[in-house]
C-alpha cells in the first residue's frame, strides 16, 4: 500500500505525448507546481490538459503553453494568460471552454462512475450546442458527460504514504475531484507523513483515489492578485 515515489521525475513515469492530463488548482492556487515543472522538463507534446485555468504567461500551465506542449485546453476561465489568448485566437491551440461548475461535476462524475448527468448550466448558450436537452420540473437542462484523464496531477498540503490527502484553504478547489478522475493520480504534497498521523475523520481525499504520492519541493505559491488592507495599530 506504500505509494511513495522519490520525486516528480519518478512519480511521473509513464507520461507521454498526446496524453490527457488533469491538473488541480484555481488560478495559481493549489497547482501541482512540481508535476508541471517535470512535464516541461520532459518536453512531451500534443497534450490535452483539463484545468480550470491556464496559469499566467510565466507560471503554472503557462510554462507548458510557452513551449507549445499543449494541443488542447479544457478550462472554464483563461483570462489571466495572454499567450493562451494569442494561441487560441490564432488557432494554434484547441480550446474547450466549460462552465466551471460543469467542469467540476464532470470530473467528479468521471471518478464516481457516473457517465453523464443533466445540468441547467449553459442551456441556451453556445455550450449547449449539439448536446441533448431535456426539461425537468419545467426547466431546461443539458446532458453533460464525465471527464477522465490518463494522469491527474494534484497538489495537497499533507498526505500520508497510503495517499490520504488534506488541502490547505482554497488550495483545495479542483484537486479532490480531479484526484478521483485520474486513471493514475499523482499527488504532490508539502508534507509527507506516516499513515495514522492524519485524522481519519477529516481526510479530504481518501487514499483509494491516489496511486502515487511524493514530497514536493521549492513551492513558489505565487499570488496573482495580492490584495491587502493597511495594518491598523490595533488589530
Amino acid at each position: 500500500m506504500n505509494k511513495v515515489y522519490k520525486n516528480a521525475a519518478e512519480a511521473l513515469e509513464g507520461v507521454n505525448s498526446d496524453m490527457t492530463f488533469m491538473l488541480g488548482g484555481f488560478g495559481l492556487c493549489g497547482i501541482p507546481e512540481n508535476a508541471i515543472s517535470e512535464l516541461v522538463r520532459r518536453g512531451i507534446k500534443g497534450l490535452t490538459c483539463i484545468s480550470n485555468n491556464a496559469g499566467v504567461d510565466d507560471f503554472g500551465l503557462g510554462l507548458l503553453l510557452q513551449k507549445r506542449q499543449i494541443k488542447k485546453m479544457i478550462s472554464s476561465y483563461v483570462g489571466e494568460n495572454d499567450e493562451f489568448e494569442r494561441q487560441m485566437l490564432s488557432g494554434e491551440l484547441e480550446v474547450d471552454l466549460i462552465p466551471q461548475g460543469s467542469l467540476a461535476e464532470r470530473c467528479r462524475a468521471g471518478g464516481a462512475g457516473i457517465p453523464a448527468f443533466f445540468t441547467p448550466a449553459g442551456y441556451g448558450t453556445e455550450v449547449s450546442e449539439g448536446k441533448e436537452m431535456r426539461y425537468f420540473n419545467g426547466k431546461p437542462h443539458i446532458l453533460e458527460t464525465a471527464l477522465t484523464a490518463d494522469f491527474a496531477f494534484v497538489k495537497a498540503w499533507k498526505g500520508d504514504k497510503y495517499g490520504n490527502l488534506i488541502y490547505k484553504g482554497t488550495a483545495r478547489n479542483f484537486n479532490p475531484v480531479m484526484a478521483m478522475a485520474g486513471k493514475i493520480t499523482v499527488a504532490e504534497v508539502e508534507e509527507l507523513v506516516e499513515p495514522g498521523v492524519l485524522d481519519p475523520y477529516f481526510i479530504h481525499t481518501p487514499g483509494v483515489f491516489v496511486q502515487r504520492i511524493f514530497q514536493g519541493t521549492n513551492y513558489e505559491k505565487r499570488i496573482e492578485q495580492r490584495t491587502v488592507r493597511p495594518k491598523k495599530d490595533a488589530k
Partner: protein
Amino acid sequence: MLNKNQIAQRIAQELRDGWYVNLGIGIPTLVANYVPDDINVEFQSENGILGMGPFPYEGEEDADMINAGKQTVTLKPGASVFDSSTSFAMIRGQHIQLTVLGAMEVSQDGDIANWKIPGKMVKGMGGAMDLVASAENIIVAMMHTNRSGASKLLKACTLPITGVKCVSKVVTNLAVLEIKDGAFHLLERAPGVSVEEIKGSTEGALIVGGEIPEMQL
C-alpha cells in the same frame, strides 16, 4: 448619475438578513463594502469559500486563501472551505439567495451576455453560466451604456449569451430596473437623472409606471 461605488451601495440595499450571496468580479465585489450594520449576510466565493471576510492586513496574505477573483482574502468566524464540486452544488442547488454579476448586455427578456466577444475576448465563462442558470435572484450591476454611448439594455443580446431569462433586476449608473414580462420596468432614477434620459439610453422595451422616485443612498 451614480459611480461604481454608488451602484454597489444601491445594490446593498437589496440584501436581507441571513442571505448567502455570491458577488461577481468588478462592481459586484464592491457590494461587500456596503452591507447594512443591522444584518448579517455571508459571501460565497465559487472557488470554495462560504463566509468570506475582508482582504488580509498587509503581510498576512496567504497564497492558499484567495477568492474567485484570485485576490487574497480572509475568513470570517463560522466560515467553511470546500472543493469546487461542493461549491457548485450550492450554486446549482439554489442554496444561494442572491447573485450579483456584471454584464456586457442584458435583454428585456432577462438574457445576459458577459463572457465572450467573438474573435476578441476569449477569457471563458468561469462560473457565470452555472450561476445564471440556477440562481433565483440575479441582480446585474453595470453601466447603462457602453463606452461609445450605446445602450447595454437591449431588445435582444447581440453577443453570445451566458444565460436565458435569468436576470431579475438591473442596477446601473442611471436607474434601477426590474425585468418581467419581456420588458425593463423602471423602479428608481439615479439622483439628478430624468426619466427621459433613461428612456434615451435604453434600447429594450421600457415600462414607466407613474411617478418614478429617486434612489435613496
